């Protein structure tokens, strides 16, 4: 099965990213941005199952390129996302952002196709670097957020590396297969994965950092970090029950914080945590249908979330505004952006005939089939909440609501084209899910479009819509933020750090001062006694010496008689 002719799809995108600054010609740069993801996608889709490239590192045999159904689902949607993101971001002036985004996308594909723990870890860390640079490249606001993001992901990376090292030491194998939580190294690997998936208690990193990226940066960020974490959880910890409460927490945390939020892209950031919560719950349920549902939902989610963020990114690009309180009424002059945003909003809400419906309902149905009563009712309530917090709230406050007086034109053609492509996938997969179902790791025995299913879903969503409009007074946006866990490291943590900083500087200065004072004192004393005028330094008359010699001798004589 091992061939040496294969080009790893991950390397195609990473090389494209690294060489991008060398292409001075804009059209050539566009070609790289559009052709490299398509080349990667073609390889991912045509490569047969199995191991395609081995390597060796520290005496271990690494599986650099391996593909099976699960890996193909994720690697292909990552490649589609890199293409659509590249198309959307053609007007992005920051070469750093585009380069970093492609390295980031490539390493996400690398994680999906890694056949062992070490390869997975290396790509995992390249992703952390790439994504941090995407955030940092957005300018002043991105600086602090980027550093906080990097700190959290370094913590996650350290947990993962400790776990991987421990696992290899304990088992002697680098294989990345399904594990349980029976040993400490495996718990550490699990914890490292949970940091990236946006699980509590550190979920706040996502809504803190992503909205500070540029109008195009967040489109890339939304796709890869959390979904590679979903992928590794699917591969490494399917059916781990603790994931069910973790996932449900994420689902409701995302909804509640999104309801309170005023920044349009932070609303969508919280809704990433919410949607990933559905996938994490599915992984925890662990039946074939639930795991299929989690994988399918990751695929459809990447596409509709990118569409929503492209719509929001276009508004930000054309108006420079990001707060709901500053926006409204944009449907007048941005009807296409508005329409594409609505398609994304319907898909995230799992409206029948959209991609969200054919994927999320698999997870809910799996909970029902397993008779997990609390999980099923919680997921149903959350499905209603998704329509409320993202499905209506985002388009309503950005494109309708009040007339903000803003009259921005539609964004450039390439941004509209990438939104059209993603909207096509959202509706296409919703109406014809077979190509996606055929890719899933287990055979699909699930019919999404039954009369009962469609009627129930329409009731759930439309009455959520009714609730939204009846409670509009309560949902009115205010110029506020909502404190999240990141408060701990942005306020008390920051205060502690500056205290330790000042304390350290003070202590050091006191110590340095004491040393200088001590040294000066010694020097002065030496000078006083041994200097030209010092007692031991000056020349004495012979008589004085004879006198003191006599005194000393006398003393010795007296003492010897005592």
């Amino acid at each position: 099965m091992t061939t040496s002719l294969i080009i790893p799809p991950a390397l195609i995108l990473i090389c494209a990213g690294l060489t991008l600054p060398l292409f001075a010609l804009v059209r050539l740069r566009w070609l790289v941005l559009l052709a490299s993801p398509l080349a990667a996608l073609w390889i991912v889709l045509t490569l047969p199952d199995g191991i395609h490239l081995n390597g060796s590192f520290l005496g271990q045999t690494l599986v650099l390129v391996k593909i099976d159904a699960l890996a193909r689902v994720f690697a292909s949607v990552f490649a589609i996302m890199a293409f659509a993101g590249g198309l959307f971001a053609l007007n992005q002036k920051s070469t750093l952002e585009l380069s970093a985004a492609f390295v980031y996308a490539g390493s996400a594909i690398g994680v999906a196709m890694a056949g062992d723990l070490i390869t997975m870890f290396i790509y995992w860390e390249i992703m952390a670097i790439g994504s941090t640079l995407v955030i940092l490249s957005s300018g002043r606001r991105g600086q602090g957020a980027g550093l906080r993001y990097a700190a959290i992901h370094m913590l996650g990376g350290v947990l993962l590396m400790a776990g991987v090292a421990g696992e290899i030491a304990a088992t002697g194998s680098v294989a990345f297969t399904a594990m349980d939580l029976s040993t400490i190294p495996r718990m550490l690997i699990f914890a490292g994965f949970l940091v990236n998936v946006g699980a509590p208690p550190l979920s706040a990193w996502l809504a803190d950092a992503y909205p500070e990226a540029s109008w195009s940066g967040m489109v890339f960020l939304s796709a890869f970090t959390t979904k590679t974490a979903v992928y590794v959880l699917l591969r490494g910890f399917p059916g781990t029950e603790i994931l069910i409460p973790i996932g449900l927490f994420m689902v409701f945390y995302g909804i509640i914080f999104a309801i309170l939020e005023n920044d349009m892209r932070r609303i969508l950031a919280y809704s990433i945590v919410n949607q990933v919560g559905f996938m994490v719950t599915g992984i925890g349920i662990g039946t074939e249908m639930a795991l299929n549902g989690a994988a399918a939902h990751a695929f459809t989610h990447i596409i509709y979330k990118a569409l929503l963020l492209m719509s929001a990114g276009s508004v930000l690009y054309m108006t420079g505004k990001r707060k709901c309180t500053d926006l409204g009424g944009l449907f007048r002059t941005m009807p296409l952006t508005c329409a594409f945003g609505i398609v994304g909003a319907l898909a995230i809400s799992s409206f029948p005939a959209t991609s969200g419906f054919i994927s999320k309902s698999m997870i809910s149905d799996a909970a029902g089939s397993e008779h997990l009563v609390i999980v099923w009712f919680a997921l149903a309530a959350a499905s209603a909440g998704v329509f409320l917090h993202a499905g209506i709230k985002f388009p309503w406050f950005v494109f309708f609501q009040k007339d903000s007086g803003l009259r921005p034109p539609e964004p450039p053609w390439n941004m509209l084209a990438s939104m059209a492509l993603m909207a096509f996938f959202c509706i296409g997969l919703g109406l014809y899910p077979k190509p996606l179902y055929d890719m899933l790791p287990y055979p699909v025995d699930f019919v999404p479009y039954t009369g009962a299913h469609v009627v129930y879903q329409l009731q759930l969503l439309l009455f959520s819509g009714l609730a939204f409009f009846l409670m509009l007074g309560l949902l009115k946006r205010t110029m506020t933020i909502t404190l999240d866990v990141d408060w701990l490291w942005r306020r008390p943590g920051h205060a502690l750090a500056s205290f330790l900083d000042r304390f350290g500087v003070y202590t050091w200065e006191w110590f340095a001062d004491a040393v200088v004072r001590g040294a000066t004192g010694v020097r002065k004393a030496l000078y006083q006694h041994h200097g030209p005028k010092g007692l031991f330094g000056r020349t004495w008359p012979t008589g004085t010496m004879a006198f003191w010699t006599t005194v000393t001798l006398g003393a010795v004589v007296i003492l010897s008689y005592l």
Partner: protein
Amino acid sequence: MTDQGTSGAQPKQSKPAAQTASDHWLVRPETIRRLWIVFIAILAATVLGDFFVEHHPHFGVDGTFGFGAWYGFASCVVLVLGAKALGLLLKRPDTYYDN
């Protein structure tokens, strides 16, 4: 209900009344009133749809008449009120971290 919708869609006290006639047809009060009528008709149709499909409830209560409708509505009310309560505790001016 209609009042709520109208006030929600048209909170532009600062705009003169004459503006509404020349404004986009979608935000005119007449259109919004019609949209509400259509919306309520669709809501009623989805609930009546329960007569025509056979549900396969997993737990019992999920088979009650119009379950999706009342459960979806109630969930949203609880979520919004819960969020508002949490907001009382955790909301800060959006310049909070800038200081």
